[in-house]
């Protein structure tokens, strides 16, 4: 029997705590070299870093798909090592980068119902959770479609809905916008924000700094298996050298802002809107 804290309590201080975790893959590659991390309920965190920085390895250690070589992870006040992957799934859900790794059912509805049913929820609750997840992702009209016949953008939504349906407090989304076009990204991010507003903790793994600037409340920059920076979004954009050394090209607006510093433009600009506002106010002589 796993202890089940009420998963939406806002005063739950840290829902996930990672203590100095290291992870070595078979063959000796050390993908995590000592990561400490505390995650509050309700946060919207972006984990960013270049290919091979350890982002996905970290996520897999949080959901028990990989177990730390040393160090430990606490989830909802319990040692993760004492829980099975299925038990951890009550608390932390993970949507794969490639949704096709996750989809196998005949219809969207069956796909989304699979998770909660597998966790042993009673039928009525399965229906309630699945309907809610389907509505959140805007898939109401596609319930009887075959998941693999849908476009990549919709397949990704189905895979996220099937994670949401298990109602984990924390949802990890691994590169959810890869391969999507502008319209699909805007649509998906609206649904993802709604999840966060409902009280879910979101961890977005990405290397798209534009996405981070628009949505995240906290940014964790990883490089070489370590956390280089843990900060609010403006702080994450103020050090161009750090971004580049983490294989994260600073967004053009950030580069432009830095080149205009002598005119009083702040260096922590990350969106076009923020840059335009600061240009307008610098121009009118206000600080």
């Amino acid at each position: 029997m796993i202890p089940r804290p009420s998963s939406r309590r806002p005063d739950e201080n840290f829902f996930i705590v990672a203590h100095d975790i290291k992870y070595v893959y078979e063959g000796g590659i050390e993908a995590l070299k000592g990561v400490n991390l505390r995650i509050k309920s309700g946060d919207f965190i972006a984990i960013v870093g270049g290919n091979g920085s350890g982002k996905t390895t970290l996520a897999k250690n949080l959901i028990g798909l990989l177990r730390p070589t040393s160090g430990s992870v606490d989830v909802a006040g319990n040692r993760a090592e004492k829980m099975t992957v299925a038990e951890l799934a009550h608390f932390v859900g993970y949507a794969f980068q490639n949704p096709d790794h996750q989809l196998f059912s005949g219809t969207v509805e069956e796909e989304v119902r699979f998770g909660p049913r597998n966790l042993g929820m009673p039928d009525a609750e399965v229906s309630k959770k699945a309907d809610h997840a389907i509505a959140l992702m805007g898939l109401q009209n596609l319930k009887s479609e075959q998941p693999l016949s849908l476009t990549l953008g919709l397949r990704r939504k189905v895979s996220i809905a099937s994670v949401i349906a298990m109602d984990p407090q924390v949802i990890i989304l691994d590169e959810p916008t890869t391969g999507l076009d502008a319209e699909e990204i805007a649509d998906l991010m609206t649904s993802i924000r709604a999840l966060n507003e409902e009280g879910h903790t979101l961890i977005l793994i990405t290397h798209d700094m534009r996405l981070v600037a628009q949505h995240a409340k906290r940014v964790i920059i990883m490089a070489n298996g370590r956390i280089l920076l843990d900060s609010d979004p403006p702080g994450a954009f103020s050090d161009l050298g750090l971004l580049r050394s983490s294989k994260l090209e600073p967004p053009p607006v950030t580069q432009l802002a830095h080149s205009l510093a002598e005119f009083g433009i702040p260096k922590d600009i990350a969106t076009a809107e923020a840059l335009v506002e600061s240009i307008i106010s610098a121009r009118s002589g206000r600080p």
Partner: protein
Amino acid sequence: MRPLELRDVKFTYANSSRRALDGVSLDIEKGEFVTLLGANGSGKSTICMLSNGLIPHAVKGRLEGSAKVFGFEVSEHTVSEFATRVGIVFQEPESQLFCMSVEEEVAFGPENLAVPREEIRERVGWALELVGMKGYDDRSPFSLSGGEKQRVAIAAALSMRPEMLVLDEPAYALDPVGRIGLYRVLRELKERHGMTVLLAERDAEEASVFSDRVVLTKEGRVIDSGAPKEMLRDPDRLRSIGVLPPQLSEVASLLGKRLGRSDLNFTGMDEARRTIIELFSTRRTGGAR
């Protein structure tokens, strides 16, 4: 002979009822760097596969109109006939790599053409150097990072000494620094070797800086074509066709709206900086309150 000449091309995939291309006319000139920009499903990949004959020979469907590659109708010639003139690189480098070493991978194409050994060695060295992967010859392609794999896939296409390189969202899985690095390599191929580059993208950020021309696609049609600066100046229009606008275009557009200056338009960083500094020096006479 033009690398690509499409005249009112229509194409419907074998098990689809929808036209993937719905009357596309498009010329790609020798030495041009052209980026096709459009939403998923707008026809970009179909144009890429047409440009080396994969469509209609390997990927079946109904092709109408005229599609000429270096003057030859694609439907009348085989993929292997185009292989020495057109190199193609897909989204996922994994789908293209299969050899035990980087060297074998890059040598595979010319070996199949029975190119003399000495020349193959020379081509492999040349191609790896061009993509910045010199010295990786003995590495296993599967031990490389995503960006490195994509460069090996490009080197493998280059070793055939093509005149045109076609890339379907080549930076798909790359981190931002990998993306920029890849685009620099492509631009250099054009500048130094006169390579024709045709590229499909959903993200206009790099297209604004690296392309000579941008072609906008929507629902199987080409809706506009021209210099990046003109094609990319309206972020709302780009978003409406599923393309992520360049951030500097967004800045120019927002700033223009705030200041009542519809003429504001910049793409490169230096140009943006100059224009904004000018705004500071003209603030008394500018349109702002």
